[in-house]
């Protein structure tokens, strides 16, 4: 049976995992490799690493994190943050990542999506999109780049459709309004995007309880759900989330040993 994925997101800054609220006020959570191993051992289905500073120095740190994770964690993981060339994608993939997440760079230079897909296959190219509610936009959501700092003139729905046409094989859809609030996912936004594209959509931003995941799978039609704060701070474990979803009739991967 096909299962909904629970993905843990690790925001990495200067070699440490951090978490903020609405992209601000980040605090350190711990060592990314240790955390990755802990989540792997408790049955997470996939991991995402975002290099949230993405400085030249940070990129070097990130590659060593990717290598260390790949050596001992045998589930898929993707890496994003500051990747702007096919050569950088290649470096990250050779270091052991499955997928590359393109966010701000894809907005600035949409060609990079097609270039990456042609070189490594669509399944390698994930569009990371940060969306902010804005009634002025046709879909009601605006694309924001640079870690939530710079609004663009792109509409979230139109950009999702365009990115998939250009070659994105998956979309990680993050709601800035919900990020880190633990008040629940933006189900309306998730459903709108998920129903409009043919590729899997990963809901991100706002998860605080297992009920929120159930909602985003049922109402938001998400194919996967990203969690961060609710597991990083120890409020819930991945097995607790999965048990809850399973009891609600949502198929998840329960056997992981």
């Amino acid at each position, binding site marked *: 049976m*096909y299962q909904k994925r629970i993905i843990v997101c690790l925001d990495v800054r200067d070699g440490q995992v951090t978490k903020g609220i609405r992209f601000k006020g980040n605090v350190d959570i711990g060592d990314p490799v240790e955390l990755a191993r802990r989540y792997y051992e408790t049955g997470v289905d996939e991991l995402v690493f975002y290099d949230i500073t993405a400085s030249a120095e940070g990129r070097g740190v990130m590659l060593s994190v990717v290598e260390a994770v*790949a050596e001992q964690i*045998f589930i*898929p993981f993707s890496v994003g943050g500051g990747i702007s060339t096919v050569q950088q994608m290649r470096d990250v993939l050779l270091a*052991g990542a499955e997928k590359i997440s393109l966010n701000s760079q894809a907005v600035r230079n949409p060609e990079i999506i097609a270039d990456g897909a042609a070189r490594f*296959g669509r399944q390698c190219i994930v569009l990371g999109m940060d969306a902010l509610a804005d009634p002025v936009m046709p879909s009601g959501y605006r694309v924001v780049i640079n870690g939530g700092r710079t609004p663009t003139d792109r509409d979230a729905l139109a950009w999702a459709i365009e990115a998939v046409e250009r070659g994105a094989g998956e979309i990680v859809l993050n709601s800035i309004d919900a990020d880190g609030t633990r008040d629940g996912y933006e189900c309306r936004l998730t459903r709108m995007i998920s129903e409009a594209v043919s*590729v899997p959509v990963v809901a991100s931003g706002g998860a605080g309880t297992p009920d929120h995941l159930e909602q985003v799978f049922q109402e938001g039609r998400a*194919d996967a759900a990203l969690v961060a704060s609710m597991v990083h701070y120890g409020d819930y474990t991945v097995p607790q989330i999965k048990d809850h979803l399973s009891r609600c009739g949502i198929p998840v991967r329960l*056997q*992981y040993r």
Partner: protein
Amino acid sequence: MMTIVIDYEAGNLRSVETALRFLQTDFAVTADPTVVAAADRVILPGVGDAGAAMTTLRERGMPEALGTALSRGVPVLGICLGSQIILDRSEEAEDSCLGFIPGEAVRFQCDLKVPHMGWNTIQVERDHPLFQGLQQGSSFYFVHSYYPRPAQPLHCLGTCEYGQTFAAVVGRDNLVATQFHPEKSGEAGLRMLRAFLDWRP
């Protein structure tokens, strides 16, 4: 006993390597067909486009080398794209494929999202040493838009459900192949790779 991983610049080499290293087995990655032809054990990995993969394999003289390895009776494991191009042809490739198992790779025609990306359970159709240690309800990681459709039911060893039933494990004689990625399927996948390394056909 040395396991040879075929390098034809198709994606997930690195993850297969790290899994083999973790399993502490002797292996080498090669683009040299003479090494493949003389190997004790072969892995044909791959993600990406079937047509591009066949072009590179042909440029490197790999179809003949793999044929030689198979006729010598050594175990060969195809992974993902490696489970599709061992068939006669693929809807994704203009030219013919390797033709080690009769059949073709076809694209998903269903209402669900394509690629089929994520974890799914498999159903064993025929017993095989690859399934040694497989636990009931284990899931495996899939990422694909095409799937193998062997002409003979006998060559379908395991199936999976995604809008339809498709062959997730195919094989004949000393050749076996998984549409999913055992090297990315956690402990269940590592167990399956171990079973392949222990297989003495």
